[in-house]
Structures are given as C-alpha cells and as structure tokens.
C-alpha cells in the first residue's frame, strides 16, 4: 500500500482538435486523464459521460460494466446519497483510488467525476444556507458545509470534482436577490476549493485539482454573464461582482478545468417562467433554444478552450442543438438510461442513414421515434434484434452491446469432471430479441433493463461517433445533417412519455403484489421485507 502515498493526483487535460474563430461553433476535442505515465484514459468529444446512481449505471452488473468499459470510460457520481450515514461509507474505503475501488470501476479504465448533488434530481429541498448546501438521502435531508465536501473529496479521491454550487431547489421563480446571493456564495466556495487554504486548518493537502464549475445565473442572461465574469476575478478574493481585473493576481478560471450546465434545474425554472410543465416535451425545441441562448450568455466572457459539459439533455436533438449552437463537448447519458428504465430500445443514427432494415414506423407527422417502446404488443412476435436486423445466428446486428452481440466467457468450473470436459467455447451467441425483452418487461424481470441500458449506451456512443465523424470529415455538412436528423426523428420524444406510462402500468399491476406473495409463501427464508422503493425496482 506504500504506492498510495507516492501517487500524485491524475491530470485532466482537454485539447480542442478543431481551430475555430467562433466560441459557439461545433468542435472536436479530446479529454485525457493521465493517472501515471503508463495510464491514459481518453474521451473523444463531442462525447458521453455516464450518469450513475451511487457510482453505478443502474441495472448494469459488474461483469457487464467490465465488458462495456470502453463504451463508458467516464462515470459521473453524486455524493449526497452517501450522507445517509456519517461518516459516509466510501470515505472509509482503504487503499489507493478509494472511490474507484468502492464502486468497483478500475482506475485503469474509468474516469470518475463527482458532484455533490445528483444533477438530474430536481426534487424540491430545503433552501441552502450562507455556508451549507442541502442534499437528499433516503433517510431525509442532510446539510453539507464546504469544508466537509473538501474533506470527503480528499478521502475518496475522484478524478474530477464539480465545485459546490448554490443552485436553489425550492419553488421557482427566484428573486434577483436570491440569484445574486446564490452566485456570490458559489464563487466564494469555489475560491476556497481552488485555493486549498481554508479557515479551518485541519484539512491538509494541495488545492483540489480537475475542478468543473456549474455555470449559474438562472434564466437571466445578464446574471449568467456576470457569474462567468466573476470566474475571471482573482483567486485570492473570490467574490462575485468584483470582476475588476487585478493584473497581478491569477484569476479563478486559471485553475478551472471546465464548465458544467445543469439542464434539469434550468428547465424547471424555465417551465415556471414560461408556463410550461416540466413533464411535457411539447415545447422541446423552443426550450432548448432558450437554454442555448442562456448557455451562450454564460460562455461569452469565458475562454474557448475549456471543456463544456451538459447534464440532463433529454434527447439527441437537444444534444445536437447544443453542439451546434454552443460548442458543447460532453453530455451525460441520463435520458438514454431513463429510456432503458422505461422499456425503450434506442434505434437512431447520425447522420441519418438511408438504408433501413425494415420500413420504419412513422408517426402521423412523418417522423420516426428514436427507439422502440418494447412494452408495445407489436413486439410480442418480433424476433429481430433491437436495431431490426434479422433472425439468424451470427448475423452482425450492428451493435456491440450485451443484447445485440452477447458473447460467452469461459465458465467457472466447479469440479474435476467439468475441468476435463469444457464444451463449445467458440460458439457464437445469438442476439436477444425484441420479443424476449417485451416478455421480460411484461413479467417485470430486471434482465430487461440490463439489456436495454447496455444497448442504449452503445447506441448513444455510436451517435457521438457519427457526430464526430461528420465534424471531422465534412464539417460544412454538419448543419445540414442536424436539420436532416430533426426532420427524420421525433424531437418531442413522445415515445418517452408513452413508454413511461406503460412502465407504470406494469409496475403497479405486478410489482408489489408479487413480493407480498413471496413473503407469505416463505416467511423467514427471505428475511425481512425491503422498502417499497426497492420493491418496485427489484421486481420479482
């Protein structure tokens, strides 16, 4: 374990691969994390990082994560849930790379970024204070002060840290005063994190490295620009609105690795401002347009060459829009994972391909869905792969996921006889069909979601590979390809709402009753009952 002390923190770098005069134009880049001279993890941009729950992509077991490691090099975890018990369990993990070890994601293959809050969780919570943030855990609300956040970070050693931000999660709209106060606090906390010198001396160690900052200012363009300008203010002061340049002092921004836009909270604020319900995607296009102008306001004072990450975009159209209009580099996978939760197998590509495996189903307005709602009874006899390829063994399904390209691994041998008799190791596995997953969804079997989430991640990665390819080889075609994509696929994402309703129906019909029966059938043998949330998630 002596290696643990000698290690220096990994270095995160971001390089733009395309020269551009415009700060908002689409761009190619590469993120690299150097853990040591031998180990570099790369993420090409525009690209994907994975939204997780306590570090885990829901439904994806460890061996599957292993197999899919190259499709999920960057995992994003949030810390608030761990505050349920104090000290938080991951902070007690011994050995090097504690958070990686705790989660079971090898540091040689995964970048892990950490934020305090789950960026997709917009549930209302008590207001933050002058010197604390509130977080939600399954056992209720917890407060965190910046010094604790810092000590947790130094205990678990994530590769990338999102600074604490005072984004309000009380009911919007927020007053001008509230917005100013929130920006002021966030800048102060950011300064503390970057300087590494705090009033409390018990926390040792160098300033936190590889820090990302949430761009604040809510739905007000001016406020957003002011917040960004304050990032250019001096590190030593770190107060908002004091953006008069101190020539000799390094700005905060020098120590910032990149910027984060949290769309979920912004969307909630916009919904109030513009009388849209957050659940409704009807005004998706209008909404993402508003968000892109807000992001532009934030980015305009800032240097061009830093990483731009967006949380909780809700469709490929939104992603394309933000790439095209704001030069966003990195998106999380949240919506694709939600789609997997709700039984949707994604099936779309960029650029839109002309050859189709079968006549695609179109909505009345002529647009296709970005996936298939496998709850739908039309799939009961559909023995094709998720992407609609044929029914023969060994056929290339066009997708590398565990559902479309399953593979056999050498089985564990449990005795001498088995050791002498290993059968058909080289055989190719048959892909899983839409009909099978349709069945699993209706019988509430969680294998459905494992197959779907793996598939959806690969489809989304392929989408970004397509985006990068156009930007690299045909940059002048990019805008036209985006337009073609928008004309082809349903940007309102109606399928999401339909699948969610089907999911709810099956969940209610089967979820709880089944476990109650199991408990009755075998008391004692299965232990005490779990919570209701878990019942629904775990199925039978």
């Amino acid at each position: 374990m002596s290696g643990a002390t000698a290690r220096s923190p990994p270095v995160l770098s971001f390089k733009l691969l395309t020269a551009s005069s415009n700060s908002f134009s689409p761009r190619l880049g590469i993120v690299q994390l150097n853990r040591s001279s031998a180990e570099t993890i790369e993420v090409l941009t525009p690209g994907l990082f994975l939204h997780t729950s306590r570090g885990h992509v829901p439904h994806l077991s460890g061996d599957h994560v292993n197999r899919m490691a190259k499709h999920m090099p960057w995992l994003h975890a949030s810390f608030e849930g761990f505050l349920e018990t104090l000290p938080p369990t991951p902070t007690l993990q011994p050995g090097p790379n504690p958070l990686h070890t705790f989660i079971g994601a090898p540091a040689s293959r995964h970048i892990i970024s950490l934020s305090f809050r789950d960026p997709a969780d917009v549930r209302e919570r008590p207001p933050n204070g002058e010197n604390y943030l509130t977080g939600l855990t399954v056992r209720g609300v917890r407060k965190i002060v910046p010094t604790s956040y810092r000590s947790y970070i130094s205990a678990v050693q994530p590769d990338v840290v999102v600074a604490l931000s005072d984004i309000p999660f009380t009911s919007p709209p927020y007053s001008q005063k509230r917005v100013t106060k929130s920006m002021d606090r966030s800048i102060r906390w950011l300064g503390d994190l970057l300087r590494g010198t705090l009033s409390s001396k018990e926390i040792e160690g160098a300033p936190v490295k590889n820090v990302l900052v949430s761009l604040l200012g809510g739905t007000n363009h001016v406020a957003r620009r002011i917040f960004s300008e304050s990032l250019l203010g001096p590190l030593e002061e770190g107060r908002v609105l004091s953006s008069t340049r101190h020539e000799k002092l390094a700005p905060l921004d020098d120590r910032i690795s990149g910027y984060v836009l949290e769309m979920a909270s912004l969307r909630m604020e916009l919904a109030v401002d513009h009388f849209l319900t957050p659940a409704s995607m009807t005004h998706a296009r209008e909404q993402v347009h508003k968000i892109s102008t807000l992001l532009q306001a934030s980015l305009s004072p800032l240097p061009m060459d830093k990483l731009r990450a967006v949380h909780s975009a809700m469709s490929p159209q939104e992603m394309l829009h933000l790439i095209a209009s704001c030069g966003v580099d990195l998106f999380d996978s949240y919506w694709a994972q939600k789609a997997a939760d709700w039984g949707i197998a994604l099936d779309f590509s960029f650029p839109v391909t002309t050859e189709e495996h079968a006549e695609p189903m179109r909505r009345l307005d002529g647009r296709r869905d970005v996936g298939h709602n496998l709850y739908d009874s039309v799939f009961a006899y559909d023995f094709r792969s998720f992407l609609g390829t044929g029914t023969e063994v060994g056929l290339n399904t066009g997708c590398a996921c565990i559902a479309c390209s399953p593979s056999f691994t050498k089985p564990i041998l449990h005795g001498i006889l088995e050791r002498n008799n290993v059968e058909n190791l080289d055989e190719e596995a048959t892909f899983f069909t839409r009909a099978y997953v349709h069945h699993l969804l209706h019988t509430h079997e969680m294998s459905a979601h494992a197959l779907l989430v793996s598939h959806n991640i690969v489809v989304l990665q392929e989408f970004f590979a397509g985006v990068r390819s156009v930007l690299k080889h045909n940059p002048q075609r990019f805008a036209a390809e985006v337009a073609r994509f928008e004309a082809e696929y349903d940007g309102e994402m109606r399928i999401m709402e339909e699948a969610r309703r089907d999911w709810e129906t099956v969940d209610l019909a089967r979820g709880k009753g089944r476990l109650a029966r199991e408990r009755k059938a075998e008391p004692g043998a299965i232990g005490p009952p779990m919570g209701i949330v878990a019942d629904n998630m775990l199925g039978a």
Partner: protein
Amino acid sequence: MQFEVIAKCHTTRARVSSMTMAHGTTYLPTFMPVATQGALKGLTAQQVEALGVTLMLNNTYHLNLRPGTKVLDAAGGAHKFQGWRKNLLTDSGGFQMVSLSSFTKITEEGVLFASPFTGEPTMLTPEESIGIQHSIGADIIMQLDDVVHSLTTGPRVEEAMWRSIRWLDRCIAKHKSSGRTDRQNLFAIVQGGLSPDLRQKCLDEMIKRKPDLPGYAIGGLSGGEEKDVFWQIVKLCAEQLPEDRPRYCMGIGFAEDLLVCVALGVDMADCVFPTRTARFGVALTNDGPLNLRLERHRTSFFPIDEDCPCPTCSSGVSRAALHDLVTRETVAAQAITQHNVVFQAAVMGGARDAIMEGRFPQYLKDFFRRYFADVAYPKWCVDALRSVGVDILEGIENPKVVEGKGAKWEYSDKAPK
C-alpha cells in the same frame, strides 16, 4: 438421455453421474437455479452459463401465461427465446397453479383454476401440461401430478397419490405420441405425502413404468413438514428408485438440505431460495448466510468470500459496497445472485469431487463443522447422516445440537452466541 453413474461413495448412498442430453452434459449431483419466467434475476443467459450452471429451471405455469405457447413456438422454444444453450428443466405447472391461483379444483380430468388474466375457470390436463412443455422444449419435463400440501393428512393424500399415477400414464402416452422422446425426457414424480406406506405403493407403481421414464423426482415435500419426516421419506424414495435413473428432489435449496439429500442418494435439486434471498441482501457462504443489510457489514471492505470465484468476489466488490447498494440498486441483487448461484454450484461441485476421491464423509464433516459449529448442529442432519454411516459429530467436543429445522440465519446485528 445418456445417464451414467461414474462413482459411488463408499459409505453413504451418494453418487456422481453424468447426464447428457440435447444441450450438453450435466454432472450430478447438481443444484438447479430457477429462472422462473425465462431470466435468472437480472442476469443474461450468458452470465448464468459463465457461473458454471449447466442445467436450470423454467416454470411452465409462468411461461404459459407469458409469453405463451404461440410465442414460444414461433421463437423455436424457450432455449432460443432466452438465449440459453445448456440444459433446461420445466416443472408441470401444477404446483404453481395450486399455490398461486386464488381458486383451484382437482378433477380426474385435470386441475381447474382461475385464469389470472380473466378469472375464468381454466383446465390444465396432464396432456396439456405435456403439450405446453413441448412448446417450451426443455430437456427434462415433469409429469403433471396431483399436488397436496405436505401437511395434508387423511384419504386425500392417498387419492392424490393414485391420481398422480393415473396422470403419469396419460403424460407418458401424450409424450410418446409426440415423437419428442429423443429430445425431451419425462420424469415421474413420486407422491404419497408423509406416509411411508403410500410412498412405497407409489414407488412400486412408478418403477414399473421405468422403460418410459428417463428419471424420477421426489415430490410433495418441502412444505413445512418436520425435517425428521422429510429426510426419512427422501431416504425411502432414494433407496428404492432405480440405480440407473437420475433422482431429483424438488424444492430443496439450503446447503445443509442439499448435502443431506446427496448423502441419501439424491442427484438433483432446485429452489428459488438462493436467488430470491439474494434480492433481500443475503449472501450464502461456507460460514452460513450473511445478511448484508445489517449495520455490521457497513465497514467491511473485503469481499463476501475471498476464495470465491464468482464475478462479484473475484472482482473485489466489498461487503460494504453491497451493504450500501443492497436495497437501492438492482446491481446489488445481481451481484449477490451471481455469488449465491456460484456458492450452490461450488457446494455441489465440491461434493462431486469428494465422492469421486473417496472422501465424501470428511467433506460432510468439514462442511457442517464450518457452517454450524458456532451455533448448533441441526439434530435432523446428524440423524439423517448417521443413517447412512456418517457421524458429523465425531471428534467434536461437547457439540451443540438443536432440534427442529436448525437452519442458520443472520437475522440481527447481535453477535452469534
């Protein structure tokens, strides 16, 4: 089916055999995990195979409801449907009908039950049960039997036993006429409740039908009967069932039950317990079950079992990490399920090797000492194993022995006394 006894224990009635069917060879004794609806609790078929499972179970009752035989026929059977290339066994559907349906009535024709979809009375005959199992296409299929709860007494038990024999004849006739006897192997189920006399009669009748039966199951147990009665019935049946046929004891899953049954001459067993209990955070180990939800596991930064080859333990996932996830994320259920399936397979694989190497009695002693010595040996296990010549208390000073089930369970945070 090709069935061959490879080795026999010199002391107990345990044996090792190979059972080769259309989807490969399974070495016995073995434990079969239950993939009720065509999926083993969050895992894919490839993952289950990677755990070293070569024979698993699907439930006919459930697959008949969903996806139904039409879909299964169109898919080319349950193997293809779920991507499983190893051996598969299906039950007859009768047991689930009786235990899960709100209304069941047994007539000579079959089981009358309320459809869970429409509530309509629906009949499952022996012929239909076999027909459904043909659509599923499992390598081993089970006769429809007249299931009575194992605590039932009186004339109903005898009636059910005789009816099960008559239904067996109908199942045999239906199966033979299907032309599928080369691919699917029909097992009879010995009934007769807790009465040695009725069991004997049932055995006599069913053994007469041996030419049409590639294997036998012992049914009607594991319903809460006294363990003393349980093992004596298993022993009676296993002793008389033909040497050249596999013997399947239905509904057995606790490690101690498995090993006792193996010692009594049982070759196969199934139970939902190891996979079901995993979802509630219980990991099975050689030291007894661990309830990973307990606070005491919160800071245990080491695997469930350092020596376990399962994907969970071998990748170093800690008990603390599982404790953190267990009621929140399905990945914890999957991780513990993988471990538990491997644990069951390892207990049986270890038994096979011990039998082959002539050290099965010692294997039993070692297992029971490690598993129970810190609490107490279940008396029924001691008695059952003594009946086949192994004294697991031999050489133990002042052994603690407990009446009743004696199953070990980590219920609370209290340290074991």
